[in-house]
């Protein structure tokens, strides 16, 4: 009956805390005298253990412990929650990266104008007349006295003032400005645009070939957006061509999104580092060369007198004027049908701009190998790929000539214009 005093827990749980308590209580049992041990009747082991274990203090402590608020177990997030959290983190990382990679440089560089390092002096350009020394003193002429007639030596009739290119392409230039919907000719510039729309190599294509003849290399110019070399600077294509009084203009290589490379524009050197891309150079003498990165040395090129350079690429024709089959680019875009812009060279003074529409119903667009093939068929000896996609724009006479696949502002353009800077309005009144 002594077993009634014990709680069921005590009897049922010999291990753990109660077990330990039993172990600590063991010496008390050994305090009994030997006579007691002998006279006491033999009890069952279970009852004996229960008797020794029971302590009112222990019960109170245990109750207290049971009633005490247990620390809440931490809830582990579910797998789906964890994945969602990680996806969110990936998004945050990408947004932060995009901010520092794209947005912040634009904000900080918005008003940073990059000035050219130096200017390449053409070997063919005559040196300017020396202005050092005292200025010539003009003799005072009395008011009543008529100034002596200037004796001008009559020019010999044989002297031909035309440039070499004007002579070579005499049948292309005209004495007066003649302008039609798709052509322009003057004493210095001859441009005619041909539009091809139809099946090309099994696909419906539309592309525009602007055949260009210039009398001087200065008729072939480039222009940055807003006429300043600013990082990430961009301007509407038509506004840009109008601001330059361009007869014909094509998008360039968007060189102002990079802070290195080999960049010369209108004879001004901005960067003279080596590139990993193919380079296209228009020299002051009208030649065009395309180079792989291993084929040129920046210093040697500078000495050769570059007038314009482009660093988009890749080059489309080899040294024999044959279409390249493999291109120096890692981008997958070359395998896609896309709107394309390219610059072709026949001989000094004779060039072409080719713009192909794409990603539209009237034009599929060209893969790069097809585009290279097109330049070979046109008979170019050198050809170079420019920025494409929505950037592919050809403007003529102050309006867009092709059908771009989207609207994108341009960082720079290649343009053909009169050297004299005669505006269209002045021409019209002439």
């Amino acid at each position: 009956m002594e077993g009634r005093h014990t709680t069921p827990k005590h009897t049922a749980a010999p291990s753990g805390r109660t077990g330990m308590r039993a172990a600590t209580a063991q010496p008390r049992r050994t305090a009994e005298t030997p006579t007691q041990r002998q006279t006491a009747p033999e009890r069952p082991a279970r009852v004996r253990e229960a008797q020794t274990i029971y302590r009112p203090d222990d019960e109170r402590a245990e109750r207290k412990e049971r009633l005490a608020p247990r620390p809440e177990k931490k809830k582990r997030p579910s797998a789906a929650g964890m994945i969602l959290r990680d996806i969110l983190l990936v998004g945050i990382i990408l947004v932060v990266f995009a901010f520092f990679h794209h947005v912040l440089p634009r904000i900080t560089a918005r008003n940073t104008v990059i000035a050219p390092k130096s200017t390449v002096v053409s070997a063919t350009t005559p040196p300017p007349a020396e202005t050092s020394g005292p200025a010539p003193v003009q003799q005072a002429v009395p008011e009543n006295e008529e100034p002596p007639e200037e004796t001008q030596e009559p020019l010999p009739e044989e002297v031909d003032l035309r440039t070499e290119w004007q002579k070579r392409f005499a049948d292309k230039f005209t004495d007066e400005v003649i302008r039609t919907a798709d052509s322009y000719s003057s004493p210095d510039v001859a441009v005619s645009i041909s539009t091809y729309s139809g099946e090309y190599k099994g696909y419906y294509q539309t592309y525009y070939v602007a055949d260009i003849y210039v009398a001087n290399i200065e008729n072939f110019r480039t222009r940055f957006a807003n006429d300043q070399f600013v990082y990430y600077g961009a301007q509407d294509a038509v506004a840009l061509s109008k601001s330059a009084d361009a007869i014909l203009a094509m998008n360039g290589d968007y060189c102002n999104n990079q802070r290195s490379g080999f960049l010369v524009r209108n004879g001004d050197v901005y960067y003279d580092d080596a590139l990993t891309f193919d380079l296209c150079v228009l020299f002051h003498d009208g030649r065009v060369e395309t180079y792989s990165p291993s084929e040129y040395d920046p210093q040697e090129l500078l000495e050769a007198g570059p007038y314009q350079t482009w660093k988009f690429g890749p080059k489309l024709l080899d040294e024999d004027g044959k279409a390249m089959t493999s291109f120096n680019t890692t981008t997958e875009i070359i395998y896609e049908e896309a709107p394309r812009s390219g610059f072709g060279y026949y001989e000094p003074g004779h060039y072409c701009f080719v713009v192909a529409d794409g990603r539209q119903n009237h034009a599929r667009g060209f893969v790069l190998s097809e585009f290279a093939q097109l330049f070979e068929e046109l008979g170019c000896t050198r050809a170079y790929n420019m920025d494409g996609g929505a950037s592919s724009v050809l403007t003529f006479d102050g309006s867009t000539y092709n059908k771009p696949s989207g609207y994108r502002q341009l960082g720079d353009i290649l343009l053909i214009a009169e050297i004299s800077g005669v505006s269209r309005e002045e021409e019209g009144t002439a």
Partner: protein
Amino acid sequence: MKRFLDFLPHLAACMAVALVVITILNGFNPLMAWLTSRTSRIFLFLFSTVVLASSITAIVRNSRR
């Protein structure tokens, strides 16, 4: 500190996914300097640091076990 150490592998995984995305974008348009810009270089350095810290933490925990 324990929380941070638990979070490290997640951070490393997320940065790795972001790097994969950036690499794919670079394939489409390398001229945008997705992998060669100063920001990219800093990102790669941070990623390497996080992976290193995460690896060391994992190694220490495994050895304690």
